[in-house]
Structure formats: structure tokens, C-alpha cells
């Protein structure tokens, strides 16, 4: 398939393709981090993860409309406010859900699956009633559109760079929060041994609520960022949920590093195969590989070595 092209062309395309892989990697990390925190750290199967993402997207939509109508001067930078607002809105809803629903189900992990699935249906219908069944268009500031041309063929999408930087910032923040702060230490302590953690004076209920809210908040930011590359509609969250679970399970549920490693593996495999094969075929092969590896390593790529 490459006979007709010059080396420069091929080089450029491979550079572009590498970049496409990196963007996909960032997107995967961004959508999976929140779930990895909730599923991996708390053992809660949150089927409504996609809907929390879409909540972030709708917040961004409202922000863009609001800013366009009332303070057009700030339109160029509204996206940053929108992401912060998306984080807190999704986080607040997360805390509410944890308080009203999840905390009663910690001893029945499979029931959380049903409960959160129900929640996802409720949220979808709520979006449909509030925002209408049709997809909404989020207007982006001009500087986020288009691409930076490096050569004739190599053009770097600006929103791709934006997603990559955002992912890096969030991944680093999560790392510090979970592994270098007091809150994170408490959260990990509760995961390892709830009773002991309670006995040494950690308010386990509060920690649970914070962790759940954090996971949802990150989902909100991801949703907000995805308005640049995807659609915003009542059921758009469903587009992400399968990939998200795949990544988290493949990476090893209890390990954040595993999530990142599995995002990398899956994104590179998929984007390379999409280039050489067709889209549907690439998906099939990716899924088959993941199934194969999970049969050999049921715990996922990185399994936590804790005695339970």
C-alpha cells in the first residue's frame, strides 16, 4: 500500500499517526481516571460514569451560551471556567449520589451495578427532558479550532494538544492527591481496611464521599473537554462507557498506574490497526486481544499485591 509514496510523505504520515495515537491515549486516560478511582479504589461499579461526563459537557454548553450572551469579551477563555464548573457540578452530584444511594450498598457491590445503571437511565431521561432529545452544539472559541501546520502534510490539531496537556495536568494532580496528600492516604487506608481505618480515627464515610465525588468530578472535566472532539447529547455518555470499563479492567482495577498503562496499550494498538486495517476490524482485534490477555491474567495488567 505504500509503493506510490515518497519517503517524506510516509514519514509525515507516520508522525501524524503517532500523534493520533497519543491523542487517543490522552482521551482514554481522561475518561478512565475518574472511573479507576471509583471502581479501583472503592470497588463501586459506576455504570453512570458516562452520564457524569455528559453532565460536564452540558455545563460547558450552558457556560458557552451564557458567556456568549452576557459577557462576549470573555468568550476566548470561557472554556477554562467551564471545566472548573464542570468539575464541581459533577463532583457535587457525585457526593449527593454517594450520600443517597451508594453508601447503603458498599457491602453489596453487585447491587451498585444495578443501582448506578438505573441512575444512568434516570440521568439520560433528565437530560432529554431538560435539554431536548437532539444533540446540542457547543460553540468553541476560535483559538481551539483548526490546526498548526508544521509541514505540508503534518498538521497538529490544536484541540488534540489541549486534551494532552489537560490529561497531563489532571493525571499529575490525581497522583499528588492520592499518593502525596493526607486525604489520599486516608482514602487508600479506607480501601485497604475499612474497619482498621475507622478504628484509628479516619472518618470513613467522609472519605468515601470525597473519593466518589472526586471520581465524578474528573468525569465532568473529561466530558467538558470532549465537547471539542465529540457530541453532546442525552445518550452520548453511552459511547464512552464500554471503552472506559475495558481500560480500567484491563489495567488492573486497583491500580491507577495500570489504568495509564492499559490506556497506552489499547490506544496504540487500536490506532495502529485502524491505520492498516479497517475501523471495525481494528475494534474486533483489540477486543479479542484484551479478552485473551484477561484470560491469562484475570487481575489485569497491574494487580495490587495486597492480602485481603
Amino acid at each position: 500500500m505504500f509503493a506510490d509514496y515518497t519517503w517524506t510523505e510516509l514519514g509525515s504520515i507516520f508522525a501524524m499517526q503517532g500523534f493520533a495515537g497519543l491523542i487517543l491515549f490522552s482521551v482514554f486516560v481522561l475518561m478512565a481516571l475518574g472511573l479507576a478511582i471509583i471502581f479501583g479504589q472503592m470497588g463501586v461499579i459506576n455504570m453512570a460514569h458516562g452520564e457524569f461526563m455528559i453532565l460536564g459537557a452540558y455545563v460547558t454548553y450552558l457556560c458557552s451560551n451564557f458567556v456568549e450572551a452576557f459577557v462576549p469579551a470573555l468568550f476566548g477563555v470561557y472554556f477554562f471556567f467551564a471545566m472548573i464548573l464542570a468539575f464541581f457540578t459533577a463532583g457535587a452530584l457525585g457526593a449527593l449520589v454517594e450520600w443517597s444511594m451508594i453508601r447503603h450498598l458498599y457491602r453489596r457491590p453487585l447491587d451498585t451495578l444495578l443501582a448506578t445503571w438505573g441512575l444512568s437511565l434516570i440521568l439520560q431521561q433528565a437530560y432529554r427532558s431538560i435539554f431536548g432529545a437532539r444533540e446540542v452544539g457547543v460553540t468553541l472559541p476560535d483559538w481551539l479550532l483548526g490546526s498548526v501546520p508544521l509541514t505540508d502534510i503534518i498538521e497538529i490539531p490544536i484541540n488534540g494538544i489541549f486534551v494532552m496537556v489537560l490529561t497531563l495536568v489532571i493525571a499529575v494532580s490525581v497522583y499528588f492527591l492520592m499518593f502525596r496528600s493526607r486525604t489520599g492516604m486516608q482514602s487508600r487506608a479506607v480501601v485497604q481496611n475499612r474497619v482498621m481505618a475507622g478504628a484509628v480515627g479516619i472518618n470513613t464515610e467522609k472519605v468515601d464521599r470525597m473519593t466518589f465525588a472526586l471520581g465524578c468530578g474528573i468525569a465532568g472535566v473529561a466530558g467538558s473537554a470532549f465537547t471539542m472532539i465529540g457530541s453532546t447529547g442525552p445518550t452520548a455518555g453511552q459511547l464512552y462507557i464500554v471503552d472506559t470499563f475495558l481500560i480500567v479492567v484491563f489495567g488492573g482495577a486497583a491500580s491507577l498506574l495500570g489504568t495509564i498503562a492499559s490506556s497506552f496499550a489499547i490506544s496504540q494498538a487500536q490506532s495502529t490497526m485502524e491505520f492498516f486495517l479497517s475501523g471495525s476490524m481494528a475494534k474486533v482485534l483489540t477486543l479479542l486481544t484484551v479478552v485473551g490477555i484477561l484470560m491469562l491474567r484475570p487481575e489485569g495488567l497491574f494487580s495490587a499485591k495486597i492480602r485481603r
Partner: protein
Amino acid sequence: MRRLKDLIEHRLSRRSVLTGTAAAAMLVTAGAIAPGHADDVNTTGLAVTEDTVKVGILHSVTGTMAISETGSVQAEKLAIEQINAMGGVLGRKIEYIQEDGGSDWPTFAEKAKKLLVSDKVAAVFGCWTSASRKAVLPVFEQYNGMLYYPTFYEGLEQSPNVIYTGQEATQQILAGIDWVAKEKGAKSFYLLGSDYIWPRTSNKIARKHIEKLGMKVVGEEYYPLGHTQFNSVINKIKLKKPDVIYAIVVGGSNVAFYKQLKAAGIDMTKEKPVLLTISVTEDEIRGIGGENIEGAYAAMKYFQSLDNENNKEFVSAFKEMWGDEIVIGDVTQAAYLGPWLWKAAVEKAGSFDIDKVRLASPGIELTTAPEGYVRVHENHHLWSKTRIGLAKPDGQYELVYETADLMEPDPFPEGYQ
């Protein structure tokens, strides 16, 4: 008090719009038969009384497909209201029973059965995806119902119990490819679609036609429904440098595809590549964003911006009923034709009986259709013009070409299967 006043004004202004349409529509059905006794016009026990007739509306208002099907529901309700305002069908007001298919094909079949068997409706306006139509088809054939199906689709079907008010694949595809070959000097095509029956069949027809005209297909690819990452295929397109990107991507994927295409530096407002789609109506552009799809061409039979008297009245009546913000796409317009075609067929037959309506249907013509003139073919599809529109940043299409004659519907194209 304020509300009441608004309401009265609202009704009044709507009526004034309606009388316009009504007057025009009367021309079509001139010579309508005087309303007969309920038993005479209904010998098979349908839900027809002395002054009402029941019909069904069967679309998804929940689930993934609600995005697309909402417009059709609105159009059908508008048509029914307008028909009632001018006296109904054979002197009977139309009452509709709306059922929700819930984006789930077995549910569609179940609800279709309910409408036909328990409600005894005289006609059903509904379905959107081919999958839902295939699911209800056996029900309509078994219980002898009449379905008016609005979506452009892949063809290869012709049922005595369905009137297809959208275009079948050849009408949409052949004219589009001919145009792009002639006007844009296209030589090579990259075919891209979502992975299910409609895009695959359509691309099969497109490929045959492209190769017949001596042009080349340099790539053909399908992505799963709901796919959101198109960077790899966009790179492939950049490598192959086709003259035309022929895209039949649907649903949420659409939004991702066009946003990423733009972000990757493929500028559709330039000479090449030309992007030609048959799957993006004004409805979809709302989600995609006009600025992301500016410069693309669409081949279909209706655009909201069509400049003719029928369409102006239709658009203003539609906005009157459903709000100023609304946009109207190809399928919405086709759905609007359903009740009118049914009314014309019933009045021609002088009866609500399904068999008589079926016999009366071929040859029925509408001069009041927003798209212009349409006529029902022997094969239950519509003769209609195919048009090419250029996407503008405001989310509307600008008409750049329309076929001189009506395109003959050909659901079983020879040599194209």
C-alpha cells in the same frame, strides 16, 4: 390572563397560516368525494366513526434514536393538525395515538401490533431506522396495515403495506456522484461510513456507479456505530489524497468525525477535497456545529432553505407550532408528506379500507409538498428531485444544484446489488 391572550393570538395566527396551506392543498384533492356513512367507507372494522378516524404515530421518543426521530413526530403532528383544520379526511377529524418505539426494534414490532390489532388504526406514520422498519414489516403484512416510512434508506425493499416517503439509495446517490464528477471534476473517491446496512449498501451502489463512470475508489471503510475517534482514518485520507470524501457517518459519530476533520486541517471550503455526504441533514448540523462542517456538500431531496412558496409556508407553520429555534431536515419534510399522501389516497379511494388505499396510492401526487412536486410510483416510493446543498456556517444548506427532472425511484437497481 396574559397567557390566555397569547394563546388566542397563537391560535389565530396559526389558523391564518393554515388557511393558506389549506387553500393550496384543496387543489390537490379537488373533486374529493363527499363523506359517506362510516360503514360504507370502512368495511374492515378500522377505528373510524362518523366524525373521527384514528391513526398511529410510531417513533422513538426515548433512547438513542430520539435525537433523530423527534423531528418526524413533530412534522406528522403538524400535518395532522393542518388536515384537521381544513376539515379532516372524508369529513372525519384525525385522532392520533402515539406510541414510543424506545429505540428498540422488538418494541417497535410490539407497538405496531398494538396499533393495528387493538387500536385498529387506519394508517401508521412511523419508524426511522431500517432496523425498526424491518422489525415491523412482518406485523404490517400479517395484519394488513399501512405504514408511511419517512427516512431515506438503502432500498432493496418494496412492500404492499409500506409507502416510502423518503428517497431510496439510488435517487440520492447517483445524482450526487454525477454532479460531483461533472461540476468538481472528481476522479477519486474515499468512501467512509458507519458499520451497518444502510452505509454499506449505499456505498456498494456508489462504488458501482463511480467505477462505471471510469473514476476510482481509493479507499472504503466502516467504523462501528458510536465510534468517536477518527484521527487514524483522517490520516489515511490525507495520505491517499482523494478528490472526494464520501461520508455516510451517522449519529454521535458524525459530530466527532467533522470536528476532528476540521481539527486535522482538512478545509472543506477549499477546492479539494470535496466532502459529499448523504447522511447529514440540518438536524445533525445542530450537533456538529455549522463552523465545523462549512463547505461540505449534501445530496438529498429537501433543504430547509428551499426557496418556494410551499416551503415558506411549511417552515413558518412548523416554527409556529414548535418554536423558532427548530431546524427542519430532509426526513422531517418526508415525514410531513405521510399524512398528506394518505389523505389524498383515502379520498381518491373514497374509503379507509387498507386494500383500497393501497390500490389508490400509485399515481397520487402532491403539488403542495414543501420540496415541490412529488408523485407516488407503482413501487410505493416517491418520484422526487435530488438536490445538492452547500453547508453554511449558520447551519443551513444553500441549494447549488437540483436535477432537472424527477428521479425515478428504483429500489432494486439492476447490476448494483
